[in-house]
């Protein structure tokens, strides 16, 4: 592959590179961070990358909303935008519920570090006073 075609590929696939980077970064945060809030942040980044996956191919440069008029000939596909509007709502609901759970976990355990929570539970089991 010559340098020119490589840069062409890079250019035309630019949004995909960003998407995949965000996707993997988000997933990595979820897996590697023990802090429950940071995990939710990672989950948010992961979900946001999918919005980009849908929106980027649907957007044409110079395209407008699909308006029935002779003045406009280049349209962006509105359907992915609508789908992602739904996905954003779902994402917000998930994040809200996740944060609410973290609040309750902090009340019950007095910590939001995964390792501490697991340690406290196994201590409680060892002492035989787990409810």
């Amino acid at each position, binding site marked *: 592959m010559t340098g020119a075609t490589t840069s062409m590929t890079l250019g035309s696939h630019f949004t995909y590179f960003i998407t995949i980077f965000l*996707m993997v970064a988000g997933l990595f945060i979820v897996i590697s961070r023990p802090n429950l809030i940071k995990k939710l942040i990672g*989950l948010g980044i992961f979900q946001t990358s*999918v919005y980009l996956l*849908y929106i980027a191919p649907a957007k044409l440069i110079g395209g407008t909303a699909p308006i029935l008029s002779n003045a406009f000939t280049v349209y962006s596909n509105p359907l992915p935008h609508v*789908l992602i509007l739904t996905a954003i709502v779902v994402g917000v609901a*998930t994040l809200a*519920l*996740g944060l609410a759970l973290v609040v309750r976990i902090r009340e019950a355990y007095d910590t939001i570090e995964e390792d501490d929570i697991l340690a406290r*539970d196994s201590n409680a089991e060892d002492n035989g006073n787990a409810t």
Partner: protein
Amino acid sequence: MNLAPHLPALQVVVPLIAAPLTVLLRQRSVAFAVALVASWLALAISLLLWWQVANTGIISYAIGSWPAPWGIEYRIDRLNSFILVLVAGIAALVLPFSRASIESEVAAQQHYLFYTMFVLCLAGLLGIAITGDAFNIFVFLEVSSLSAYVLIALGRDRRALFAAYQYLLMGSIGATFLVIGIGLLYLMTGTLNLADMGQRLASVQGTRPVLAALAFITVGVSLKLALFPLHQWLPNAYTFAPSAVSAFLAATATKVAVYVLLRFYFTVFGESAVFARLPMQQMMLLLALAGMFAASTIAIFQTDLKRLFAYSSVAQIGYIILGLSFNSVSGLTASIVHLFNHGVTKGAIFMLLGCVALGVGGTSLTRVQGLGKRMPLASFGMVIGGLSLMGVPGTAGFISKWYLLLAALEQGQWWLVFMIALSSLLAAVYVWRFVEAAYLREPHQNTTNVAPTPWLMSVPTAILVLAIVYFGLDTSFTMGTASEAAAALIGGSR
């Protein structure tokens, strides 16, 4: 007004409307009544739909009169009418059970919200099963999942919170993987209607985005259906959730996810594409076997019955996936029948555990010592459920295992027959642990008095236990529907 043509929409709309109603009414007995009516109506509608499909064939319903493939289509064939009956049936039995069961497990001021979440979860699960639109599946999946997380977090043990949080993380990752897969398919086909997508995929079959979509959807849905080794969220979630929630989710949530996998594999991708270009058959076979053995082995060493049977669920999912991996009509029939029979069996077992938890104050193996004397009916029911898990003739579990064995023989895989028998033996070991504690041990000293089981709990539980035996003897409903559904999936109704 004639409501009959709108039954497909009502199937989802009735529980969906009931959910905000229960919030607004607040009174917990009124909320219970609303939820109960909604779940029984849902069952009636699902039976009517099943009957209609059996007689007149596939029903297609255009939401808002927007014709498919532009609008959202509800499409009901043999397979999903069967799933709808399972989900609505279990919900209609678990809901009356839950009224007495949550009395001791959930704070009284949260009861009406429990019913809200329950009918919302029901609406989501029914929606996944009924819809013919890929993105709609994701939306309903999240509706059912978000309400399931809340239901699990209602458990009185603080570990329920962390279990719900972990399920939320894993579930959201799974759902997002599914959306990525659907997005790639949409990019390649320009449609979201499942049947339409299946037709258009034929021209782009084997391209890299389609294979990537297959991988993403497989992983995403496998997380949801708790395929070994993606089952990490399941044991804690089922153990610490309130009993009624464990019963409902164990019987329906993972089963609906299996349905989604079947739908994508056979209606959208088509079996030739799934199994020809990637070594899916071998992979599924391997994961199914690993699940059957690893999860059963872990189950043997559990000290809490709820956790024991949660691991058993992971193992039973293995049987369902094993049938799928054969890629034959008989294998799929076995999968679909097992999906139903295992749903009924696990629902009954977790409801019985709810009765036991109420009666003797817990479900650990030390608590249930001498249960055979103190709660003879409940322990007898547990034994029937256990026999069904092992696959003893006369129970529902036998039917599905028998057809799974036949399907394995049809493949000429003798060693698989041996493996299925061996893993049933593991099931016998963990069921024996309960039998030993319940019948051969003397009752624990400090738990002498047994709380009586309210009839609202015992009657639905008894119905489901009897259903285990009934579906083990009369297979016309289960086998009839499943074999036709499997033939339609493989035969290319697309």
